């Protein structure tokens, strides 16, 4: 039994209320949509939706999963290798009804129930992490798609810039067009498609989950290994004896070897270098230039522009200096002439290797997209008659939350606000309704006994085997995802 407060007639006809056609359906027959049917006097949903299968190792060989849905139809699968996702499950929002699927299965001898629904989220958005030191735009700047405000630049993270997109204010709080464009951008990003964004007072950037960002038309290659100061610390020993001074140019903290603690430890003598910017601690400088898309996330194209004249008390003709960005993408080697002016010259072999080492230690730059949404009261009511108990059960780790079978991080505190890496879901798991709001799959998995305890719709629980005989789309479990119904340590409160 599923979705639908079907009215049963004396002769076991049911009236389906899933849509306004309100078909009368006789036993063994389907409604006009072929999605709902009358099975022994009960309304059941029969249309395809996504079941996750995990690869089972047998004698070291992986069972192939490239089979078509047709070949699978009717197949009885071991219960513990199939997980019912909410993708394509449908939703009961905003009516109060039990969730479309409440499925029980036995896993490692334990009765497990998974409550499956597609949630309609108007409180939702994506957090985008862009691995780059390049300046995307001022913090709090508006981020636009097709000219419409869809989000903003938020607090940067280590080696990465962060965008916060979507949210209820852009979806439903602005103009109709703003809502539509926001919804489209979120849908595209969540389904792994590229989206072109423009930052007010900053760059244009093409973002795609799992792909390198393209900033002002240039594909970003790597993220920095560390800030300029950290880079000095990491590589100081490798430079010793090959060069007198090293400056690692970084928009955050530019490092100067001879002044840095790492240089002091190695007894590197002062070089008379004079840095622009604001000195933080010895050998560490803030704000040597403006942020930009040049060296190390600054607007610098000529690195010598961040240096003042060398101090003649300490500098000497012939002194050598390496300037390098935090990703090793930009570098230059200089020798002081008789007037103590740096003159660029060819990079010696030993230093070339150290620059390559910096490059090697910089990871590929990626855009990562986390979908974030909150399960509202009515969605939770599809799970239990007492929605707050579901929240508590999730907080107590009795109930596991997954999104299309992918692990979800649930925020502490009230409600069920979760984040999921969109690349961990099967392709095209997200949809939308014209409200506008996003449709995302969400599954709650728990022990059957815990489900009963939280006031679950026990009369709607049906076995997994009752489901696999309908048409369903089987997809392979995504590599690296934990199996959603695997028993795990519980964090039950004392």
């Amino acid at each position: 039994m599923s979705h639908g407060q079907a009215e049963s007639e004396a002769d076991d006809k049911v009236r389906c209320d899933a849509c306004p056609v309100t078909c009368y359906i006789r036993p063994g027959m389907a409604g006009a949509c072929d999605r709902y049917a009358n099975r022994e006097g009960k309304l059941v949903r029969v249309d395809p939706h996504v079941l996750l299968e995990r690869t089972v190792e047998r004698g070291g060989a992986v069972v192939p999963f490239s089979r078509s849905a047709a070949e699978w139809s009717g197949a009885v699968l071991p219960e513990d290798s199939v997980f019912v996702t909410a993708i394509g499950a449908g939703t009961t929002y905003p009516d109060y009804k039990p969730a479309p699927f409440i499925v029980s299965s036995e896993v490692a001898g334990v009765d497990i129930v998974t409550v499956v629904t597609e949630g309609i989220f108007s409180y939702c958005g994506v957090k985008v992490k862009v691995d780059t030191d390049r300046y995307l735009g001022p913090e709090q700047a508006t981020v636009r798609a097709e000219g419409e405000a869809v989000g903003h630049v938020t607090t940067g993270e280590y080696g990465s810039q962060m965008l916060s997109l979507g949210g209820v204010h852009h979806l439903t709080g602005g103009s109709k067009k703003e809502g539509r464009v926001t919804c489209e951008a979120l849908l595209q990003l969540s389904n792994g498609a590229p989206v072109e964004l423009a930052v007010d007072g900053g760059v244009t950037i093409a973002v795609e989950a799992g792909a390198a960002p393209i900033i002002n038309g240039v594909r970003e290659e790597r993220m920095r290994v560390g800030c300029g100061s950290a880079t000095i610390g990491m590589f100081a020993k490798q430079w010793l004896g090959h060069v007198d001074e090293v400056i690692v140019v970084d928009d955050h903290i530019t490092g100067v070897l001879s002044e840095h603690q790492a240089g002091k430890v190695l007894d590197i003598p002062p070089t008379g270098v004079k840095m622009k910017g604001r000195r933080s601690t010895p050998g560490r400088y803030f704000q040597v230039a403006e942020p930009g898309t040049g060296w190390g996330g600054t607007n610098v194209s000529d690195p010598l522009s961040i240096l003042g004249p060398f101090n003649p008390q300490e500098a000497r003709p012939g002194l050598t200096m390496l300037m390098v960005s935090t990703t090793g993408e930009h570098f230059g080697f200089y020798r002081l002439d008789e007037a103590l002016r740096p003159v660029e010259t060819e990079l010696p072999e030993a230093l070339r290797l150290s620059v390559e080492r910096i490059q090697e230690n910089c990871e590929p730059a990626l855009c990562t997209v986390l979908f974030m949404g909150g399960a509202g009261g009515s969605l939770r009511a599809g799970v239990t008659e007492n929605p707050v108990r579901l929240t508590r059960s999730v907080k107590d780790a009795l109930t596991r939350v997954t999104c299309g079978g992918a692990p979800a991080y649930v925020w502490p505190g009230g409600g069920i606000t979760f984040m999921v890496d969109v690349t961990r879901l099967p392709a095209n798991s997200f949809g939308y309704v014209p409200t506008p709001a996003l449709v995302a799959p969400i599954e709650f998995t728990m022990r059957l006994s815990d489900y009963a305890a939280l006031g679950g719709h026990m009369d709607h629980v049906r076995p997994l085997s009752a489901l696999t005989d309908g048409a369903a789309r089987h997809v392979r479990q995504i590599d690296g995802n934990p199996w959603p119904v695997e028993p795990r340590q519980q964090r039950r409160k004392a």
Partner: protein
Amino acid sequence: MNGTERAQVRMLPDRRRLHLQDGPIDLIVEAAGTPGAVAAAYRAAAARFRFVLDELCAELAELRAPSAPALRSFHGPVARRMEAAVAPHAGDVFITPMAAVAGAVADEILAAMRGAASEDLARISVNNGGDIALWLVPGEATTVGLVSRPDRAALFARARLRAEDGIGGIATSGAPGRSFSLGVADAVTTLASCAAEADAAATIVANAVDLPGDPRIERRPARSLQPDSDLGDRLVTRGVAPLDTDSIAVALERGLAAARRLIARGAIAAAALHLQGVTRVASRDGRLMAPEAPQAGIILREPLDA
């Protein structure tokens, strides 16, 4: 809950076609043209779509009642398309506007798309479970493969359409499948100036492909299967045993006679009739449609994999 909240709108995994679903309506929409025009057309399709089912259901009881040659007035634009498509046949056969519902919905969505973006589009197709509204810019041509069963990708006929042929609708009706048929055809596919007219004609021709009183055909009153069917207690086909060659020819000839009448009247341009491996074609112009040996091609009725 209304269609604005209920209707599902999503791009198919190919990121090219749009899938719209609401209640029993499943549309696969495809437009070709400049990216801006395609996007505008898809937006228009989704915007119009969410009201369609609610509009239809508001007049559902009337739409399930038999039509007469005199047009009834309906409020909903889709309902008016349905009635207009079936009324010309109501003097000859029993028919209700529901015979054209799938085609009329497809026509309505196509019209909304053209209204939004026809300048920069090359073609539009709106496929409603095998009943297709089609539009081609002058000079464009397309080939459509016809299959009798959506789960078997074997073509029984092929239609070659050019914009100047004026074919705006392709529809298929038969005994297997979602809606009931009074006849025994596996599939009858018609070409007409719009999908609603093609849909109504396919229903009429498929009903005519018949062997009245033959014990090899299992029939049941429609209402015993679907209590609110527009066909009432009329006997609908539930199963057809394997038929001999002569019986197949007789049944198909009955259908062909109906198809030829519709062609002569200008209601359709062509029809392909398929029964137990035999295909017959009636066409105002032999170039439009031809029987086909099974081979790869565009599949008319495709399974949803959204």
